[in-house]
Every structure is written in structure tokens, then in C-alpha cells.
């Protein structure tokens, strides 16, 4: 290590980062998402040990290791299910799920659907780069139909998956879109997402500079959503259905009660169950 000045003391975003150096490509949007998350946690003043960050596999799913909270780098596509088990049994923890568009919408699509529906109180942050970064550039569900790649020469020809619409249709309680190029704005969305009870979904457009150089141009396209967040699900549906994917901000907030287990109901001993068997 070359000599370098010590960081500023005090509870800042940096206190939520670990000592591990990211292997992400310089320029990758995920760095800024890391910033946004840690800023949000600092803002919420959550003790790092009360936060758990759960992920699957992918570049974006490397997130937990770079944070100073508890983490679980699980298997590809199953992060949301893993986080559900954790949060349901440990309602005292703040549970975040971080991952990519492949992890979350391709192999993990079913858990995404059902997590929205189940509405457990956690925040799911998807770094959408419309590609499988980790495995070297295959199309993901959010990729444009004509994006050429070795696995789909000439493009997939498939209609891109629209995560926000699916989230809405399946019952997520908070739906927002951020952009890694605006880490402070994204931090704000994450703060709101964490504060909103129930399943909060934040899609963060996060360029893959290695396989999607073109995404460096996103910063010129994104814009704040032209209208305020709505609670009306029908209106939200119509709006999102025709959304071009570049409107930023909170797009829907609901008031559905989160799903919780009644873990504190009765607390008998197992022996109490035995009478049912006695002859």
C-alpha cells in the first residue's frame, strides 16, 4: 500500500464500506450504487450490524462483500428467497437485496414475482445494465431485441422485460427507478424504499462499461419522471406500461400491509404438543 491520508472520522457512508476492494471495472455504475446505498444507510443511521445485504451471483451481486454490514452472497437467482427467510425470522434487521437484471429477472424471475406479492418488508435494488456482465455479455431479459452478441447473434428478437410493470402487477408496495450517475438521488430513493413498509423495488440503471459501452450515453437520456408518484394502481399501470425506461424517481407507493409472521403469539414448550398423541 502506498501511503494515503486517513478517512474522515464520524459515521459516514464510508463506515458502511468494507476493506475489500471491488473487482468491478472502473467506470461501472455499480460503484455509484455502492455509494448510494452506503449514503442511504448513513442517512438512516442504521448500525451496520443491524443491516443484512443479500445477493445472488453477478457483478452487481458482489455488493455484500464491499459493505461492512452482514452479507450473504448466495447462489444465482435466489437472493430474494434467501432474504425472505431472513427477514421473516428476524424482523428486527434491515434487509436489502442487491443484484443484477439477469439474476433478478431471468433465473430469479419467479422469486421476484412472489416477493412482490408476499410484500415482506425489505428493499430490493437491481442494478440493471441490460446485460449479463459477469459471464461476458449475454443478453438479459431487459436487453433490447436487436442487441447483437455471441450467444444471440443478431439479437434475441425478444420484447424486453419491464421490471417496474411486473413489480406493480405483482404487488410491490414501492416502485422507483434511479440512475447510478446520480448517486445522491438514488440514495434518496433507497432511503424512501427502506422507510416504506413492505417490499420496495428500486431499479437502478447502472451502466456496464465493458459490454455495453453505449450505456455511457445514458446520462444524457435519463430525466426525472414528469409527474409525481401515484398511489392509484390503475394509473400507475397505464403510466408504466408506456414508460420508455428512463424516467427517474418514485413511480408508485402503496399502502399494503407488509407480510409478517406471528412469531410472538404463544410461546409454549414442545412438550406441550405431546398431548395430541397420547392414547
Amino acid at each position: 500500500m502506498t501511503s494515503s491520508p486517513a478517512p474522515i472520522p464520524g459515521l459516514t457512508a464510508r463506515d458502511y464500506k468494507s476493506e475489500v476492494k471491488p473487482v468491478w471495472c472502473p467506470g461501472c455504475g455499480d460503484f455509484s450504487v455502492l455509494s448510494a446505498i452506503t449514503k442511504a444507510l448513513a442517512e438512516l443511521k442504521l448500525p451496520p450490524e443491524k443491516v443484512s445485504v443479500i445477493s445472488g451471483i453477478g457483478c452487481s451481486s458482489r455488493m455484500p462483500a464491499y459493505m461492512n454490514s452482514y452479507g450473504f452472497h448466495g447462489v444465482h437467482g435466489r437472493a430474494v428467497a434467501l432474504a425472505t427467510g431472513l427477514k421473516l425470522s428476524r424482523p428486527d434487521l434491515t434487509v436489502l437485496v442487491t443484484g443484477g437484471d439477469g439474476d433478478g429477472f431471468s433465473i430469479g424471475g419467479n422469486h421476484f414475482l412472489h416477493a412482490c406479492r408476499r410484500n415482506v418488508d425489505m428493499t430490493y435494488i437491481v442494478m440493471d445494465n441490460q446485460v449479463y456482465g459477469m459471464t461476458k455479455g449475454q443478453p438479459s431479459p431487459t436487453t433490447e431485441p436487436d442487441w447483437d452478441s455471441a450467444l444471440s447473434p443478431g439479437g434475441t428478437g425478444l420484447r424486453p422485460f419491464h421490471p417496474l410493470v411486473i413489480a406493480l402487477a405483482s404487488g410491490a408496495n414501492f416502485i422507483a427507478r434511479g440512475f447510478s450517475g446520480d448517486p445522491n438521488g438514488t440514495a434518496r430513493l433507497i432511503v424512501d424504499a427502506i422507510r416504506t413498509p413492505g417490499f420496495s423495488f428500486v431499479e437502478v440503471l447502472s451502466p456496464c462499461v465493458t459490454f455495453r459501452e453505449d450505456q455511457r450515453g445514458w446520462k444524457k437520456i435519463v430525466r426525472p419522471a414528469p409527474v409525481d408518484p401515484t398511489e392509484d394502481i390503475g394509473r400507475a399501470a397505464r403510466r408504466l406500461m408506456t414508460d420508455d425506461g428512463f424516467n427517474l424517481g418514485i413511480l408508485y407507493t402503496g399502502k399494503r400491509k407488509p407480510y409478517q409472521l406471528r412469531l410472538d403469539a404463544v410461546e409454549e414448550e414442545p412438550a406441550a404438543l405431546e398431548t395430541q398423541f397420547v392414547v
Partner: protein
Amino acid sequence: MSKPIAIGSVAELLAHAKAMESEALERYLDLAEQMEVHHNPEVAELFRKMARVERKHVEKILERVGDKDLPHIPPWEYQWLGEEAAEAISNEDVHYLMTPHHALTLALGAERRAFGFYTRVVETVEPGELLELARELMEEEREHVALIEAWLAKVPEPADDWAEDPDPPLLQE
């Protein structure tokens, strides 16, 4: 074009100044680390150097702050003209094969943004202690801009194939 700036007190301005310099410092440290991980030692060292400079700036601001209470401002409520703390280089603007020239160009952009920020404050606030402070800070940034300009002039321009990597990306998990 640029949005109005709403900074109403010396404390608020100092809070901005502190956030700006410390975010710049953090970012340079992060970027230096990134360059080390990606084996670009030259640029890594340059970023570390920038970090050292920013560290001094932070200290200077802290001196000014003294035992004044600064307001807590959530990250998204700072009055930056762009997305991030004016003096921080954007994570998205770097490249693993970037040259010192690129790095300094980015640093220059950052200093210019900082200068632009204070200029905007100077243009917006009422005369008084606040304006004085803003002006001072603006002048400091003007110096930084000049410093980096001079520095940049001494660094060779990148070759046109600077971003060329003969090897393909490496596949992982």
C-alpha cells in the same frame, strides 16, 4: 439553465464546502484503489496525490468550521449544480486504461465545477459574511483550477489507441 441555489447561511455553505472536499477526497481514494486493482499504477498514484491535496482542503475547511455546528444536510439536498458533489469525479467517467492526461482532465473538470458552484453562490447570495466566504472559496477554487491546468499541460496527450486492449474480457462466475 442552472437551477437556483438556496444557501442561506455560513454554516450551510461550510457544510457544502466540507461535503464537497470530503467527497472528492473519498472519490479519489476509491478511484486510486480501482486503478490499483486494475493495474494502472501510474493513474492510481496520481489519484492518491489528488487525494492528498483534497485532504489538505478538507483540513482547511475543518479549520474554518472550528467548533461551529454545521447543519445536517441529506446527500440529495446539497445544492450542487450537477448530480454529485461538485468537486468529485464521477465514477462513471473513468476507464481502467486511462492515462494521467485523462485523470487530470477529469480533475480539472471537477475543480471547474467547484469553481462554478461557488461562482453561482456568489451570484446568488446577499452581501455579507456569507458572500465573503463564498468569494474566498471561489478564489481558492480558481487557484486549484490554475494549478491543475498547469499540471495537465505537462502531461502528454494520450495516444489515439489508449483504450485498446488486445485481450478479451475475462469471464467469471
